[in-house]
């Protein structure tokens, strides 16, 4: 009888122990980023930022007193290595994962994270389809998606250049280039049905030469040239276009050029529209006087010798979301270390702030992130273009409602919709 009682007591105490979990020695976080290949222009700064941010968090005592420990996976090594490494980290007890940059990898990782039952924050995923096609329990996106980003670009274009008549597009020939143009053109057709698309070019990803496209564009003389390209492709395109005078005759709309401003130097003249996949800018008009922002920017510049670009902001949002979720979950758990399910519950409707404006997570796990665009201007103290006429759009108004697909929703907008948006404008 005594034995039975003891056994019963033991059974009861086990679930109790699960509620008041012991704090682990460290919070293990796996981060996937491109450390090799062309997309390392994003991955390497993000890794540098993650290291600085983790150091800061740990110097302040860690998350709920637990230091975080980062492990990086190179997305450039291929999908097999990524998934194998991802599994290995999860099996070795990773508490949360931050993956991934490439849309293709996000689509591979999201179902995998769900099956492995590990919290996965998509910290830099562009594709809008993930939460539109499936529901996930463990996967969250701590930033906006292509739909929000393209719509903000269209809105800024219509506000600053209301009278343009013709547009041509030069995008990279892969999923991002195609998807972003689908959304952009659907929005344009809905909001400005009279605009004529005079040319659509999809040179191959990593193309070293755009001379032929530029000759063709010079012969066409469109009012607006859109390019959602990034990295080396964008640099080459803008340099070759500026050398041959195309930047004088057409206005360029470059939704990812914030990440190339410093490299482009004097090649990007004033008057062209620059975006940043969110409210990300090293001289963020609302954040530049905040102490935490200034301190981080100083550290980042000291470590890398460059200005922070948008993946750095996205990384800060990913880590901020993690910290905020654990804090919220611990509070709900009476100050004790939370279980995984409690952390997941805390992510619902979570508000957190990285280096930009605060971001909230919607019920479909989609992040609502503000969008910043500006117009390039040369001739400041710096040897490269900075932004003027900056507008920061409210993310909620630009994000596809829950349960709708982006291309259809964007296509259902009415002319004049742009005037209903909440916008904060800044001189520079």
């Amino acid at each position, binding site marked *: 009888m005594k034995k039975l009682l003891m056994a019963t007591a033991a059974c009861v105490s086990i679930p109790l122990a699960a509620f008041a979990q012991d704090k682990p020695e460290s919070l293990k976080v796996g981060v996937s980023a491109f450390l090799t290949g*062309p997309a*390392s222009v994003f991955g390497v700064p993000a890794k540098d930022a993650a290291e600085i941010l983790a150091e800061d968090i740990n110097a302040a005592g860690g998350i709920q007193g637990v230091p975080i420990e980062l492990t990086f996976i190179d997305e450039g090594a291929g999908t097999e290595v990524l998934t194998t490494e991802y599994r290995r980290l999860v099996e070795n007890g990773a508490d949360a994962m931050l993956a991934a940059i490439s849309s293709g990898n996000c689509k591979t990782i999201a179902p995998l994270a769900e099956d492995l039952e590990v919290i996965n924050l998509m910290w830099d995923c562009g594709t809008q389809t993930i939460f539109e096609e499936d529901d996930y329990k463990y996967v969250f996106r701590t930033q906006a998606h292509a739909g929000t980003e393209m719509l903000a670009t269209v809105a800024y274009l219509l506000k600053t250049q209301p009278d343009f008549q013709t547009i041509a597009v030069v995008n990279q020939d892969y999923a991002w280039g195609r998807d972003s143009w689908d959304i952009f053109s659907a929005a344009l057709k809905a909001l400005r049905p009279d605009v004529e698309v005079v040319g659509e070019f*999809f040179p191959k990803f990593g193309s070293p030469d755009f*001379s*032929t496209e530029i*000759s063709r564009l010079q*012969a066409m003389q469109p009012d607006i040239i859109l390019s959602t390209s990034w990295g080396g492709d964008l640099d080459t395109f803008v340099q070759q276009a500026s050398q*041959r005078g195309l930047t004088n005759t057409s206005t360029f709309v470059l939704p990812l050029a914030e990440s190339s401003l410093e490299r482009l130097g004097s090649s990007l003249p004033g008057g062209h529209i620059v975006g940043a996949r969110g409210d990300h800018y090293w001289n963020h008009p609302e954040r530049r006087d905040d102490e935490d922002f200034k301190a981080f920017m100083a550290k980042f510049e000291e470590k890398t010798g460059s200005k922070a670009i948008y993946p750095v902001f996205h990384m800060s949002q990913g880590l901020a979301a993690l910290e905020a979720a654990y804090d919220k979950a611990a509070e709900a758990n009476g100050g004790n270390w939370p279980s995984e399910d409690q952390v997941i519950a805390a992510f619902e409707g979570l508000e957190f702030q990285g280096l930009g404006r605060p971001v909230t997570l919607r019920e479909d796990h989609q992040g609502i992130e503000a969008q910043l665009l500006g117009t390039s201007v040369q001739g400041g103290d710096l040897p490269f273009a900075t932004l003027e006429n900056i507008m920061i759009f409210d993310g909620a108004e630009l994000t596809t409602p829950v349960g709708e697909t982006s291309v259809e929703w964007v296509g259902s907008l009415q002319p004049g919709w742009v005037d209903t948006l909440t916008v904060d404008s800044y001189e520079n």
Partner: protein
Amino acid sequence: MNLTLFLLALFDGIAYAALVFIVAVGLTLIFGVMRILNVAHGSLYAMGAYLTASLTTFIVAAGLPPIFAFPCMLVSAVLIGAVIGGPLEWLLLRRIYHKPEVLQLLVTFAIFMILEDVQRLVWGTQPIFQSAALQLLGNVRVFSVNYTVYQLILLPMVAVALLLGLRFFLRRTVAGKLIVATTEDREAAQAIGIDADKVFLLTFIVGAGLAGLGGALASPTTSILPGIGADMIVLSFAVVATAGLGQIEGAALTALLIGLGRSFAVYVWPETQVLVPYLIMVAVLLVRPEGLFGSPAARKI
């Protein structure tokens, strides 16, 4: 398509073909003589570009006039040929000539992988753009379209000069004749006392130098970043196979076909642009299995 557009497409095609030829001719030369398809050719191309950009940036920073960018290109090409190409042949490739062709090819593949990482360790991951040479020459206006003098005039001139120079070198100089003899029949050449080792070393240095020169000439026009070498290799392979093994004139003609095909594709049907080199290659090989200028090898029973 009217005449103006036709001419514009023609100019773009020629400018592009010039660069393709300069890179591919080195690969053709190495393949013709050594029967090694050098995958590392792409790395040598990339390193030539990186080196030129670094040297030019250094010179501009030192306050010298940008005209010195042109000597930088030559210096880079020579350095790539002599400092990297030479030791590669001497230390690695020389040990595997008696091994099956597939092993030789894989050695160059391994070198390619190693050099890809070496580039990143030396030059980092951020794209580099150094267009001092291109800006110096300025623009020329044709049918209300601006072209850079560098791409429209200088590159084709260099390509033609290279073609004529190589022809002269191979047909009229002793070293060149030794190379041709070895290309035609390696065993017979050795039998009459040609030092094949020396010929191979010389060929590889020249071929590697040409890859470096291609990179150097491309560097002012494009962003230099990890991965540019891999793209160039596949294109060069297509040129070599379409032209026929070791055919320098064939390489020139193929480069022109690919360049024109690509630019006309952009004007007529942009979506097919990527396919052009492969379609040309398949079409040529279906009609002429030995390549445009290749001749069927004698059979040994």
